[in-house]
């Protein structure tokens, strides 16, 4: 059996590793000279920046991605991060960091609440596990339960950091699936070697299973035979296969077989694709001699104007920066209407960082933004259309087809695992 994978991002390489392990002859075609997509390292001034993800796995060494890596025997070490913290204003009456701040642990998020609201949280923690809230957004649900602005800010910074969305565009079902996954798998972790540590390990697996990865190789068309995916076209060459897996997201995949999909039977699929909304975000990479965050977990910043959270991965893997330096990365959500004002959004982010780290010395290494065709997520979390396409033997993996409740790369892994189950069982 032969499988072709289009795109060597995380989803494509995970699929290639699993299928080659199961005995498929696997060819991976990647348009760029590098593999890893938005999940690899970019060497910049001696720092290992990343092409997208923040060198962090949301559920660390026991999450869906770590499990899949273990299953395919990828040799990568994932270290559990320190506990996440939240930066709070010194006085809650002044909702910014201008007059000082204190940090609390993520798990103590309820401490700023009134006694009554804390009791309510305790009750909800039990009751929502039995019957999950449905049919609204995270923001709307929080507001029906509490009159407290702090919880809305907390939800916004958590959704902004982990999904690059605001809480009013995240379905409440998705949040409770994420919370369940936090119980199941625990908090974040950092792969040694950063994103590229994972990619290198997957490539080694694929090579040892006889699979091949072709870079600088662009697929121009997906071929169909009797209505089923049967291969791809690269340049003037045809490559036949029993199975085609695309790591490009549903919309770009549909473009590769637009003739076949132009038939009326596919119109509802094409209509659904028009409604997919990618999520946008900005990453600011800082270099510092002294730690800015001070631990390897996330620092959420709900009282900043734009920045949602910051991490400092060099506490786990110092080799991600030159000797004696720290690599600190902030992430901020960008609203769809602000994508055209990226420079202004970046300025707001830089101002936030000055307020979050007053008196600290750091250098802004690189500012990276993601939207449209190179977004944070091709499908906003909770809106993923699944891994199947209307064409048999053609599947979509990656951040355009994440599994439920899977934050970022964990969602990619859940989507790949579900696809492999369909194909291999």
């Amino acid at each position: 059996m032969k499988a072709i994978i289009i795109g060597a991002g995380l989803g494509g390489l995970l699929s290639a590793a699993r299928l080659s392990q199961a005995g498929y002859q696997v060819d991976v075609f990647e348009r760029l000279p590098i593999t890893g997509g938005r999940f690899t390292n970019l060497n910049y001034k001696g720092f290992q920046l990343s092409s997208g993800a923040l060198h962090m796995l949301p559920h660390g060494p026991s999450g869906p991605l770590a499990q899949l890596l273990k299953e395919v025997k990828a040799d990568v070490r994932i270290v559990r991060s320190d506990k996440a913290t939240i930066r709070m204003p010194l006085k809650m009456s002044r909702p910014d960091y201008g007059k000082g701040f204190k940090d609390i642990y993520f798990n103590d998020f309820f401490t700023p609440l009134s006694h009554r609201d804390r009791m309510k949280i305790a009750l909800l923690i039990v009751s929502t596990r039995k019957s999950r809230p449905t049919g609204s957004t995270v923001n709307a649900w929080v507001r029906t339960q509490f009159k407290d602005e702090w919880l809305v800010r907390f939800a916004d910074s958590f959704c902004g950091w982990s999904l690059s969305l605001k809480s009013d565009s995240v379905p409440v079902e998705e949040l409770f699936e994420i919370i369940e996954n936090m119980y199941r798998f625990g908090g974040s972790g950092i792969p040694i070697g950063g994103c590229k540590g994972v990619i290198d390990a997957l490539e080694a697996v694929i090579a040892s299973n006889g699979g091949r990865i072709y870079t600088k190789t662009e697929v121009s068309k997906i071929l169909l035979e009797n209505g089923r995916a049967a291969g791809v076209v690269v340049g003037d060459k045809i490559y036949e296969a029993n199975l085609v897996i695309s790591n490009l997201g549903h919309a770009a995949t549909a473009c590769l077989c637009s003739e076949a999909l132009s038939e009326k039977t596919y119109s509802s699929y094409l209509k659904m694709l028009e409604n997919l909304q990618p999520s946008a975000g900005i990453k600011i990479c800082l270099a510092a001699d002294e730690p800015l965050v001070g631990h390897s977990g996330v620092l959420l910043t709900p009282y900043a104007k734009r920045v949602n959270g910051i991490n400092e991965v060099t506490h786990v893997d110092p080799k991600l920066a030159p000797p004696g330096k720290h690599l600190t990365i902030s992430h901020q959500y960008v609203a769809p209407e602000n994508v055209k004002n990226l420079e202004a959004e970046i300025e707001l982010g830089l101002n936030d960082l000055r307020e979050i780290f007053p008196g600290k010395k750091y250098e802004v290494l690189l500012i990276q933004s993601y939207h449209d065709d190179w977004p944070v997520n091709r499908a906003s979390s909770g809106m993923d259309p699944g891994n199947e396409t209307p064409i048999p033997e053609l599947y979509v993996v990656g951040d355009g087809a994440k599994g439920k409740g899977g934050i970022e790369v964990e969602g990619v892994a859940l989507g790949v695992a579900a696809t492999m189950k369909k194909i291999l069982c």
Partner: protein
Amino acid sequence: MKINDNCVGCGQCASFCKQGAIEVKGKAKASAACVECGICFFYCPVKAIEVSP
């Protein structure tokens, strides 16, 4: 080199530029240090870089 409207500002080109000639802030911009070597063209994930022949 010319950078077209496809650019999202991801900075991937800047990391592969041997001259340190690309500045990124929402979009990439080539500075006077650009020698038109064309390496960045290959690394752009959204086909935003047009190199003059």
